[in-house]
């Protein structure tokens, strides 16, 4: 919200320079995001006079103008059709920053330089309203009043001597959406009082109540409705001072009636609405809920369908406004309007908010009502509008207000304990100090016992509900920077045993294995969600179709990263991500929070070359078993050596050649190669291998305690055995047979060679193992080892139909 320094000065003696005021208000919690000193606006813009105009020799639409800017004559090329000899015009001098460029689609500002246009020099620019940032008119130059003084700085010509503050109003402070509210804050800051303008009305003899009536049918949502009737209003433009004030804070002047209601709304924070009295059937106002499905055309010309949740203002026959949000076309003020019914009401904040959201409308009125307005402001605001319209539009003000206020609001009284304040803040203020801060904020208070202060909450402070709210008021008045910083003497370690996250252990291992950590979007498009299968959770209100579902797996996100890196030629990738995936538990829709399944997973991905091209290193692509090896190493680090791989025959939507990984019989995840069709979808040419594991299951089986095993005293004995088996016999079967028969001293089995070919014969393959025995009691003799080897060979023959090729 914009606040004008000059306007603000009507209500409070500011006494602080703009920068100082901005800084101090911010430190009080009323954030000033920007200070705009208008006096510094239009730097290098002056009033000029066109003293000569010629046609451009090389361009039909351009004119060569000689412009007197006071100190000198400038030759300026102008393309506007309306430029004429003798005009007073706004001129931008070389070096000026043009606020809006009308040749740029975004209207970005630019700095003016001398240019040659079709061979003719131009040393300045005659500006349009749009280019000056003063309005939308870009069709021609802005022609100034003939009385404008040549050479005068443009800001001075426009009477721009004000300073504007852009305020960031927090959601709790509706009162700050008005000059009164801000003035009150400035007054508290400078320890003065703000003053409301005194209203002087000349009412006619006719009673307002005799020409109109108001009925509230929904008292909960409309606790107060006040109205006045004005007759004989001359609709026309509002006076220049009012227009200029409205414009300065970004409001477009419309006519004197609408402008006055806006002006008073900005001043008091009370939204007002003016109805054309003669369009109101029965000259009646009825406040009631809309009929379900009722249609209504709001002032912006849109027809809207309503629900019974929306509070409406109606006349005797039909709806005329959406309460607190926007008026209707059917009762709008027009040039023909002569009689006006003014509404000044108080609506329930959440009712207005619901209606505004339903209609997708956020108006100056709804924003104020949503935050809560001052219920005691309705009459003052009405009188103020009436006074202004009497003065500027010759209105006859009828006698008295209609004021329907069925249940007068009682003032809230809150206790603030000095001891409590000091406990929460860690300070030692006295009761007197606290009272003085509260007084500065126009919060009347009295002592209630030694400790407590009883505070009467005025109706303009809807945000104060409880003691803690008052504690904050006092704290911010005292200044946060004046509160000492302290630390507890002793650092208290949590009594709960620190639960170390498995992620913290996984990350360094993955990084050490050459994997780069990625973080991808949890939200994916429908096609990706469908591709990945599973019951993806859909977002009701996605920001775009690209992000309409929650990911059910980390794989597509990582494939997108692969594609992205492909696009600049990086094809050798090792990536990992730790992140949450989501799905609907069971089948169908989400019935409750319990049907949302969320779990954290670790994804590992490998693709491209195993190593970058390097001298004396053989180049090869990574394969399935490279990733499998990484996974085995990773699992063994968590003492999860019980992890075993089981070939997976169930359908997996994204990958094939799948292995499921189980630990102690519990499924942890899947290892596989991405299907060709999926690779195509992501425009990836190389094979991609992925493994996705549930970190939750890993953590459950994670053996964190370690027990030391004494180092063996006897040397290891190694034997190499090569078996010939049928090509369909899995290696795992042979290895298992070795383990089964190797006895307790068998320590390690390593497959070091696999091959097929003429040497092994048709339908056979050779598997060569290095087998390690670790004696525990004595050194093994050759004979001991031979005996063990015989046992192994026998078992492998029996179990796998193998023959020994060599040993």
């Amino acid at each position: 919200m914009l606040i004008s320094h000059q306007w603000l000065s009507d209500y409070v003696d500011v006494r602080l320079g703009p920068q100082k005021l901005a800084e101090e208000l911010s430190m009080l919690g009323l954030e000033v995001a920007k200070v705009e000193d208008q006096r510094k606006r239009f730097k290098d813009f002056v009033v000029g006079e066109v003293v000569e105009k010629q046609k451009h020799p090389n361009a039909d639409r351009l004119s060569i103008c000689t412009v007197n800017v006071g100190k000198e004559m400038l030759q300026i090329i102008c393309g506007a059709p309306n430029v004429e000899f003798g005009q007073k015009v706004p001129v931008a001098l070389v070096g000026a920053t043009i606020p809006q460029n009308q040749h740029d689609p975004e209207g970005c500002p630019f700095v003016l330089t001398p240019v040659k246009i079709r061979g003719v020099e131009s040393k300045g620019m005659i500006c349009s309203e749009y280019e000056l940032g003063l309005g939308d008119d870009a069709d021609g130059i802005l022609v100034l009043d003939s009385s404008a003084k040549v050479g005068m700085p443009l800001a001075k010509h426009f009477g721009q001597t004000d300073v504007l503050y852009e305020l960031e109003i927090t959601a709790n402070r509706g009162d700050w959406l008005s000059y009164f509210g801000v003035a009150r804050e400035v007054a508290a800051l400078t320890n003065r009082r703000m003053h409301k303008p005194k209203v002087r009305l000349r009412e006619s003899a006719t009673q307002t109540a005799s020409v109109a009536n108001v009925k509230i049918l929904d008292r909960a949502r409309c606790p107060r409705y006040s109205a006045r009737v004005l007759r004989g209003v001359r609709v026309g433009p509002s006076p220049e001072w009012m227009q200029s004030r409205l414009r300065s804070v970004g409001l477009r002047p419309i006519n004197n009636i609408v402008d006055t209601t806006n002006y008073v709304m900005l001043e008091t924070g009370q939204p007002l609405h003016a109805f054309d009295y003669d369009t109101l059937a029965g000259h009646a106002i009825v406040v009631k809920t809309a009929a379900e499905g009722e249609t209504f055309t709001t002032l912006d010309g849109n027809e809207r369908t309503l629900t019974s949740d929306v509070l409406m203002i109606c006349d005797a026959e039909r709806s005329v406004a959406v309460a607190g949000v926007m008026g209707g076309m059917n009762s709008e003020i027009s040039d023909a309007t002569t009689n006006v019914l003014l509404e000044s009401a108080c609506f329930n904040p959440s009712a207005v908010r619901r209606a505004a959201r339903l209609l997708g409308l956020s108006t100056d009125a709804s924003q104020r009502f949503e935050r809560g307005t001052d219920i005691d402001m309705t009459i003052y605001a009405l009188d103020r509008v009436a006074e202004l319209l009497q003065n500027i539009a010759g209105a006859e003000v009828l006698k008295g207000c209609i004021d329907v206020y069925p249940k007068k609001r009682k003032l809230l009284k809150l206790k603030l304990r000095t001891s409590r304040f000091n406990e929460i803040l860690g300070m030692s203020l006295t009761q007197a100090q606290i009272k003085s801060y509260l007084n500065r904020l126009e919060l009347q208070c009295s002592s209630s016992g030694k400790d407590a202060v009883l505070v009467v909450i005025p109706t303009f402070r809807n945000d104060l509900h409880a003691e803690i709210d008052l504690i904050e008021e006092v704290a911010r008045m005292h200044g946060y920077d004046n509160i000492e910083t302290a630390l507890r003497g002793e650092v208290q370690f949590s009594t709960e045993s620190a639960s170390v996250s498995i992620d913290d252990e996984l990350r360094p291992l993955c990084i050490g294995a050459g994997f780069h950590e990625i973080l991808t979007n949890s939200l994916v498009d429908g096609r990706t969600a469908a591709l990945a299968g599973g019951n993806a959770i859909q977002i009701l209100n996605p920001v775009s179709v690209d992000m309409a579902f929650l990911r059910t797996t980390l794989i597509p996100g990582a494939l997108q990263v692969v594609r992205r890196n492909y696009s600049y030629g990086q094809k050798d990738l090792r990536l990992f991500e730790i992140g949450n995936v989501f799905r609907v538990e069971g089948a169908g829709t989400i019935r409750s929070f319990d049907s949302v399944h969320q779990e954290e997973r670790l994804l590992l991905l490998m693709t491209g070359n195993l190593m970058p091209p390097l001298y004396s290193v053989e180049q090869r692509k990574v394969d399935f078993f490279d990733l499998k090896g990484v996974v085995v190493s990773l699992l063994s680090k968590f003492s999860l050596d019980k992890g075993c791989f089981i070939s997976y025959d169930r359908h997996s939507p994204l990958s094939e050649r799948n292995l499921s990984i189980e630990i102690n019989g519990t499924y942890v995840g899947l290892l596989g190669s991405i299907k060709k069709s999926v690779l195509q979808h992501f425009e990836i040419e190389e094979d991609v291998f992925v493994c996705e594991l549930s970190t939750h299951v890993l953590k459950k089986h994670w053996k964190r305690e370690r027990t030391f095993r004494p180092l063996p005293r006897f040397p290891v004995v190694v034997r190499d055995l090569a078996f010939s088996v049928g090509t369909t016999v899995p290696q795992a079967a042979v290895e298992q047979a070795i383990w089964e028969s190797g006895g307790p001293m068998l320590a390690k089995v390593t497959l070091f060679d696999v091959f097929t070919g003429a040497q092994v014969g048709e339908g056979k393959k050779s598997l060569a193992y290095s087998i390690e025995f670790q004696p525990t009691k004595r050194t093994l003799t050759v004979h001991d080892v031979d005996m063990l080897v015989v046992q192994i060979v026998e078992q492998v023959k029996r179990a796998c139909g193998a023959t020994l090729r060599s040993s």
Partner: protein
Amino acid sequence: MLEQIEQTKQQFLSDLDAAEDAAALERVRVAYLARKGYLAQLFDELKNVPVAEKPTIGKALNELRTLATRRFEERKQALIQSGVETTSAEDLTLPGRPLPLGTKHPITRTIEEIRSIFTWMGFTVATGPEVETDYYNFESLNFPPDHPARDMQDTFFITKDILLRTHTSPVQIRVMERQNPPVRVIIPGRVFRNEAVSARSHVIFHQIEGLYVDTGVTFSELKGTLVSFAKQFYGSGVKYKFRPTFFPFTEPSADMYISCFLCGGKGCRVCKQAGWLEILGSGMVHPNVLRSGGYNPETVSGYAFGMGIERIAMLRYGIDDIRLFFENDLRFLSQF
């Protein structure tokens, strides 16, 4: 033959003595001790020696080999001791073969740095679900239904009551529900906002949140803790200020600013000429929030604070586009 052995020995010793650098020494090694050196040739000739002489000649040859090897080593050591380069003339400028190491994502790195500072201060880590209920995300945190404060956080909904959490604060309630005071936790995690994606904002980002509830916790301690953090994280010379603001779940609430670490407060592009950077939001836990957690606000009090990780990482590393974090371009990731 024995003569030949003696000759070789003398020649070897004199050549060895003459070797003054690594290259010369290597030449001696190649000439005498290598696989096809003089000594090997002598051993080769052993098979032509009559059987009767074999033991004598064999012994002499073995003695020569032992001596030669020993003297060679002695000479080599002597040269090393005297500082003469002894390695052979290989090209040491060949590049090393790199061990491909991965990288930690800058967001993770930032979270870990912040977390560890608070861990030293006695905070433990807590986490919570990313899909949340309206109750935990809003209502229990003192956002009444239909309150404009909800506009502060544009929300993705899954159903009317289930949503993607907009902040890490719901975990505050979840922790309080399962634990009695004192509670001192730090809560990192991913959050979601229904906003257009741009260089400045994204639908996903990360926060880290802190909560401390105990008897007699004060605003003064909140300041103390956050100032200690800022000095640790941004440097001990950092200046700071606390500004009143509004959050539904804390009161009094404060935004913390630090002097811009790039310009030192003079004003620059990063701090938008203000000289100050807003780094976190904080405040005393609102009594209604303590009640939601099952605590009695008359007997315990607490503070909470939260910061956006992306913003902090962007400031720290000078990153000007938040989207870079989630594009995972290796040229970006490998810088961390």
